[in-house]
């Protein structure tokens, strides 16, 4: 197989620089698009992280650094970027790169639509960020609650072009996501390798599928909400969301969260898929309870559509018992996944590579995100904690130490496949420990601040409440975590060109992406191994060993002509 890979042009470079650039701009190859997605999301993520440092600097100094308007823009854009332009597209990038390979497919089902999705994502993101050149960005929080954002009625804090650019940008991002979701569905349903039944599909494939369903079902609702708000702001006079004009303020929250709660799972399920790939490989064991993992995943996906109002417990306009029950219930499948991951490590042979460290970090800290969620699920407790820093701490334990840890784990794990070289493990471990310590220093004090009653989204607070120390710890933590990210960025760039060479299957992994060269040829596979379980490469290695033991030589690994299948 190695000789075949060498014969294939590497594909990520070209003779002339111009040709190299054009090969990326015009590509419809899912691998190149995946890398474009991840790198673009990474660049946006750095901007979002920089904004978080501005926010933390302001809070460490009790509002003495920025004016309120700039602060409001910073925290709004921090969240908007991290959610819409970093976490979601970074996962889309990894799924784009990995899932067709894991399925043994040649590409996504609709390669051109795939390219269109990427370019719409880039355009939407640039549009949102361009608001800084047009008098300032949106500044009403990423949840852009109406009628504050409505530009109508008695609202005295009218946000200008930045808000409209945000709305249009997110509509474009939503369209890109929806197209991408359909693309993933068709790819997964129609392009699996021979022998790969649905229940032999790697877990990342399943999380991608459930995520795709959530995206396709929920994003159009968000698009509708955004269009309604755009109309309200631009000539519509507030008929949707402004009570002064016959609209309903709470309607916005209902339609917004009907998308945005499933979106929380759009942001966490791929991370769960990623660590479901990594933990078995570095424990040298099969994933424990594969079927219950899939069932839990589907249960989470279904339940995620009936919990949206738990963001609105304090509005006075929610049927509380129902949403409290559904919110508590969604903890059950999440718990099942947690225990299955732990059982996968049980009696395993655990190698703590950086990818595995981030996966263990995910388990340790996502647990805190889940448990703090229980406090908010108990409605009366949420009356105390809603809209305080407790919620900020909770959501960051889910999204930063959950989703973002998943992104980092995926980076270290699939980097050798993408570029044929390892990332530096030593730097990776430094990165992990800085992130682990830094993030806990940020989010744990935030939980405590919330318990003590500090509301979110304020740039200034009283100096007499003991809040200064907690905020200072959080701000120092932010700088520690970001220094870890800096090391990561250096590691990425350095390893891309000078990293230690990795073979086709450096981790002794189980899934099909490791059955081809690193990086894979444009057509992915010269031959697709036949799939007989959810771990085709494990089967292959075991058969080869058995064949060796039987003295039959390397017969089992002989190329099988015509095994390759294309969708």
């Amino acid at each position, binding site marked *: 197989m190695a000789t075949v890979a060498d014969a294939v042009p590497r594909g990520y470079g070209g003779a002339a620089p111009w040709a190299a650039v054009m090969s990326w701009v015009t590509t419809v190859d899912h691998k190149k698009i995946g890398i474009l997605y991840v790198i673009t999301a990474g660049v946006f993520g750095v901007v979002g992280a920089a904004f978080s440092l501005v926010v933390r600097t302001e809070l460490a100094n009790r*509002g003495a650094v920025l004016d*309120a*308007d700039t602060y*409001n823009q910073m925290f709004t854009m921090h969240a908007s970027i991290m959610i819409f332009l970093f976490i979601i597209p970074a996962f889309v990038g990894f799924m784009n790169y990995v899932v067709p390979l894991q399925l043994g497919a040649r590409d996504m089902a609709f390669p051109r639509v795939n390219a269109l999705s990427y370019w719409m994502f880039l355009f939407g993101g640039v549009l949102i960020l361009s608001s800084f050149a047009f008098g300032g960005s949106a500044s*009403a929080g990423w949840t852009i609650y109406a009628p*504050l954002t409505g530009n109508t009625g008695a*609202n*005295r*804090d009218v946000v200008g072009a930045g808000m409209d650019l945000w709305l249009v940008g997110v509509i474009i991002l939503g369209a890109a996501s929806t197209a991408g979701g359909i693309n993933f569905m068709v790819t997964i349903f129609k392009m699996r390798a021979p022998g790969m039944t649905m229940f032999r599909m790697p877990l990342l494939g399943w999380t991608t599928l459930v995520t795709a369903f959530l995206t396709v079902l929920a994003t159009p609702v968000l698009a509708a909400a955004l269009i309604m708000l755009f109309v309200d702001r631009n000539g519509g006079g507030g008929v949707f969301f402004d*009570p*002064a004009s016959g*609209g309903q*303020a709470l309607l916005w929250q209902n339609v917004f969260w009907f998308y945005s709660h499933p979106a929380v799972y759009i942001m966490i399920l791929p991370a769960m898929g990623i660590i479901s790939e990594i933990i078995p490989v570095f424990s*040298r*064991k*099969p994933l*424990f*309870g*594969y079927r219950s993992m899939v069932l839990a995943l589907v249960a989470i996906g279904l339940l995620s559509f009936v919990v949206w109002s738990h963001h609105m417990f*304090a509005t*006075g306009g929610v049927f*509380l*018992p129902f949403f*409290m029950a559904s919110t*508590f*219930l969604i903890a*059950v499948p999440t*718990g*099942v996944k*947690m*225990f299955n991951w*732990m059982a996968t*490590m*049980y009696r395993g*042979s*655990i190698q703590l590579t950086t990818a595995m460290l981030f996966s263990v970090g995910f388990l*340790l800290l996502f*647990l805190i995100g889940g448990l703090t969620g*229980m*406090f908010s*699920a*108990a*409605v*009366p407790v949420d*009356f*105390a904690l809603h*809209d305080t820093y407790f919620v900020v701490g909770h959501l960051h334990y889910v999204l930063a130490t959950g989703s973002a840890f998943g992104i980092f784990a995926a980076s270290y794990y699939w980097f050798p496949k993408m570029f044929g070289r390892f990332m530096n493990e030593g730097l990776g471990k430094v990165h992990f*420990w800085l992130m682990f310590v830094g993030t*806990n220093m940020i989010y*744990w004090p935030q939980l*405590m601040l919330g*318990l*003590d*009653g500090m*509301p979110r*989204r*304020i740039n200034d*607070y009283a100096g007499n409440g*003991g809040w200064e120390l907690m905020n200072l*710890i959080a701000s120092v933590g932010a700088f520690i975590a970001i220094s870890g990210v800096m090391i990561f960025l250096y590691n990425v760039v350095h390893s891309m060109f000078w990293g230690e060479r990795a073979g086709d299957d450096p981790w002794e992994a189980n899934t099909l992406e490791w059955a081809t060269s690193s990086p894979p040829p444009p057509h992915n596979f010269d031959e697709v191994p036949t799939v007989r379980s959810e771990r085709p490469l494990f089967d292959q290695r075991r058969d080869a060993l058995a064949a060796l033991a039987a003295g039959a030589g390397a017969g089992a690994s002989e190329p099988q002509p015509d095994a390759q299948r294309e969708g």
Partner: protein
Amino acid sequence: MPPLALPWASRWFHLSLALSLAATLFLLWAGVAAAQAFPPEATSEQGEDIRELYLVVFGVAAAIFILVEAAILYLVIRYRRRNDELPPQIHGNRVAEILWTAVPTVIVVVLFALSYVVLEDVESAPDADEPVEVIDVLGQQWSWAFNYSAPLNATTAAPLSRDPAETTLQVSDGGAFRPFMTVRIDVEHLRVQEINGDTLTVERRVDGTVAQEHKARAPIDRIFQVSDTVEERRLEGADRTPVVTVPVGRTVRFNLASQDVIHSFYIPQFLYKLDAMPGRVQSLWVKVTEPGFYQGQCAEFCGLNHARMIFAVEALALAEYEEWLRSKTPELGAAAAQPAAAPGEEPAAAAAAGGDPARGQQLFFANGCNVCHGDIGQGAIGPTIAQTGLSLDEVITQYRDPVGTTMLPFSEGAVPDEDVADIYAWLQTLDLPEEIVPGRGTSP
């Protein structure tokens, strides 16, 4: 094995280093965490219930946290890779999987049941015969206004529809009313415009409340704003904090309304909050148990100066509260009627400015000036503006581009110069009673 096995080259050394680092951090963390792992002591009955529920959830969460975190760390250390052997390939275990589906299910069902009981308790209104103190809270970017009430010896005589265009109100006794008095029927505020015997012309939907359907013989209360502030200096540049005074030991019904966007009425020591939504009036029931001074602030992001939308609660013993409330209740016919300048009787100053005081009075309320400056311009969060020493031009300059204040500018498009002139004219007619001195406040 190299001949010199330096301790810092061994895996064990690295592992124990990492572990001791983690342990140190964890202890540090636990030390700080223990200091503030709980919400503040509750000072209301509802808050005490919520705090108890918090403790239950905390107990469950802490147990799961310690068990699971310890288990993960144990697994990672115990089963680290020692040799190249393939571990046993365990694909699953039905009993274990059923167990860890069932146990969390039981836990969340129990937590749901407990939360449901507390929720019913916290949200329930008091019995009909229990005395309740009603305080109407108006949220507005970026401050709070607190309205108290006193019963009028009058009821509605005919039903009033929910159509805000219906502005004719039949009452049992027109003599109880005065022009420009704000009254409340159920939770709707109405402002009296004209009185013709027992027929009143009213403005509906006042103070961010919504027009409702009212039955005949509904009791009518008159509303008066109490603009107490306290010099708290909680935030840089915001010296005074508005104060709402409440009784201890009697249920308070806060009727929350908003004039513009969504706000949230949050008092950490009551462990409770509820949004003030534009377009609806919602009630929060609180029975305060401890006299004292409690900070509160808006918890729902509401724009530019959200962080400055602070307030405080002063809880007084019942007798003290009742005395306080008596001292704040304006005499019927004095403070309430006083601002109404009789038509055609324009004072010289107003005439000179060329404004129409009667129209100015309506505009004063319509533009919400009263929220910050008090119902008769006596000053509250904002300074006293009745009988200001400034000229009309100076007032307009300050109004368009306020200097040295958090007040937002009002543009020519929002409030034209002639409207400002009318308001100015009305403000100049006001004769403040002696006891109303600017910027007065209670002390904590």
